[in-house]
């Protein structure tokens, strides 16, 4: 009897170990190895060439542009995400499920298509093209286009994170706050926001990570003007296409470091969220 029990546990352990081993293997081959390659390529000609590539004016300009795009799109998404999650979780209204589906649209649409849509709308031959030209407003091949494209692809992150959280928390604490005399704003600031803060942080981190790395949509609307409309991912691509591998991987390393930083922040927020 006891040997039987022993052998089944051993079998289960063996099965579990195999699965865990496979997971690690996939993780190593598909994630760690590429990271290692990026790093080793970046510093293969020494740290000097790494820093030259990273501190070159075009790279700095690309970094700045990326940060601008992140700096504008993330706060806007926070406002939109909180507002949308609030509507969806605290009120009943017509077209609610449609709204929830639409929030997910950027997940399902290819970023290239998002970029093309903006060209069709705001480009020289586009829907608003004439009007924009008359008023001397440049959107496509300029910073506004890049910000718009980044906004489009990052819309779902904050809202998606908050909707289930707020639905689960319900409305009773808000009602209690109202009954105790709190104004709408006081209720939001003192009750709603503290309750969603870790979910919000998590959403913001994911949103930032995506905004930093966005390539497809931005690539279509940017026009690839070095030093002006190149974001970091686009800059990496240009360098790579010019066979400047060391520089390409050096700039890629900068992106990588930022991504890892976001990952650590994400983990930190998640742990607090689960508490």
């Amino acid at each position: 009897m006891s040997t039987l029990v022993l052998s089944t546990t051993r079998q289960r352990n063996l099965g579990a170990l195999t699965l865990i081993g496979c997971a690690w293997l996939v993780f190593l081959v598909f994630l760690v190895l590429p990271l290692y390659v990026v790093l080793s390529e970046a510093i293969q000609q020494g740290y000097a060439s790494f820093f030259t590539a990273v501190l070159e004016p075009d790279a700095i300009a690309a970094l700045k542009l990326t940060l601008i795009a992140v700096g504008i799109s993330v706060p806007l998404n926070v406002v939109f995400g909180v507002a949308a999650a609030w509507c969806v979780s605290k009120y009943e209204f017509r077209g609610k499920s449609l709204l929830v589906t639409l929030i997910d649209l950027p997940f399902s649409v290819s970023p290239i298509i998002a970029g093309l849509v903006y060209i069709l709308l705001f480009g020289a031959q586009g829907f608003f093209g004439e009007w924009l030209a008359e008023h001397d407003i440049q959107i496509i091949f300029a910073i506004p286009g890049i910000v718009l494209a980044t906004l489009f692809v990052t819309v779902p992150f904050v809202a998606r994170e908050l909707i289930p959280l707020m639905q689960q928390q319900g409305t009773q604490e808000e009602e209690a706050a109202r009954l105790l005399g709190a104004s709408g704003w006081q209720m939001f600031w003192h009750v709603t926001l503290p309750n969603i803060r870790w979910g919000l942080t998590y959403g913001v981190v994911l949103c930032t990570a995506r905004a930093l790395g966005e390539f497809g949509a931005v690539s279509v609307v940017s026009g690839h003007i070095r030093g002006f409309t190149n974001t970091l991912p686009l800059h990496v691509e240009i360098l790579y296409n010019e066979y400047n591998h060391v520089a390409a991987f050096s700039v890629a390393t900068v992106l990588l470091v930022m991504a890892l930083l976001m990952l650590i922040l994400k983990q930190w927020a998640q742990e607090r969220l689960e508490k």
Partner: protein
Amino acid sequence: MSIEVQHVNKAFGDFKALNEINLAIESGELVALLGPSGCGKTTLLRIIAGLEKPDSGHIIFNGDDVSKRDVRKRNVGFVFQHYALFRHMTVFDNVAFGLRMKPRRQRPSETEIRAKVMELLQMVQLDWLADRYPEQLSGGQRQRIALARALAVQPEILLLDEPFGALDAKVRKELRRWLANLHEEINLTSVFVTHDQEEAMEVADRIVVMNKGVIEQIGTPAEVYENPANEFVYHFLGDSNQLQLNDQQIQFRPHEVELSRQAAPELQAGIVRDIRPLGAITRVTLKVAGQEQPIEAEVVRDNINLIGLQRGQTLFFRPNAS
């Protein structure tokens, strides 16, 4: 402060939650809204509080029509079934919330707030928990904190939605006695919702029995129990037996029964199925020939007929409804 509910109707889609509700609650009264789940009692409470808008009708506090008044201006204390304490705040901050949210000119100083909050926490006997968070408290403690929080803003009306519904039986009993005592002390017009008739009978001055969106009866606990307005009220307020006598159907409460070991012309025979000592009383379940439903008889534990009584024996009984 008195509350008047006039011609209130409320529907959710096709479902009629409240149908022409009229109710007058006097100042200082403790009233229970009693009914099965889905009868509209919670909706009525939420309409009085201003959390829900009636489709038609009026809510009047002390002669003032408050139907259009916003929740935060109605000055009612509200206690939720699941407490709704602010989970990220300490017990102290929860109780202080209402005072801190007041407009700057009316807001007491932090020292005054501290004194007031500690006074309330002492009243609910939980001042030693001031620095804890809600999740560290038991259900009964949470509900008392919720009550202290509601009382902090000195409401003129206290509304409680199934306040003991989520608590276990013993805590429930303690807490409702405590609430009744508290009501004696502070004498605040209070309305509480419950589906538990025992709770309503034990705590309330008057009971409003509701069913399917209408009020079936309003009266003191004794009135509704002894003179139920209809079948529904009779059945909802306590257990009852049905006995087929010749061609007549008789209803009586388990305690409205006389037992005997000897047969007599006016007595019915029943076979003892079960004997349950329940503290002060003992419940005997009897099977009567020719009827499906057993008869439950509740008698004092030292009733002479119980001595040596065994299952399977025959006992004779007679309903003696007053």
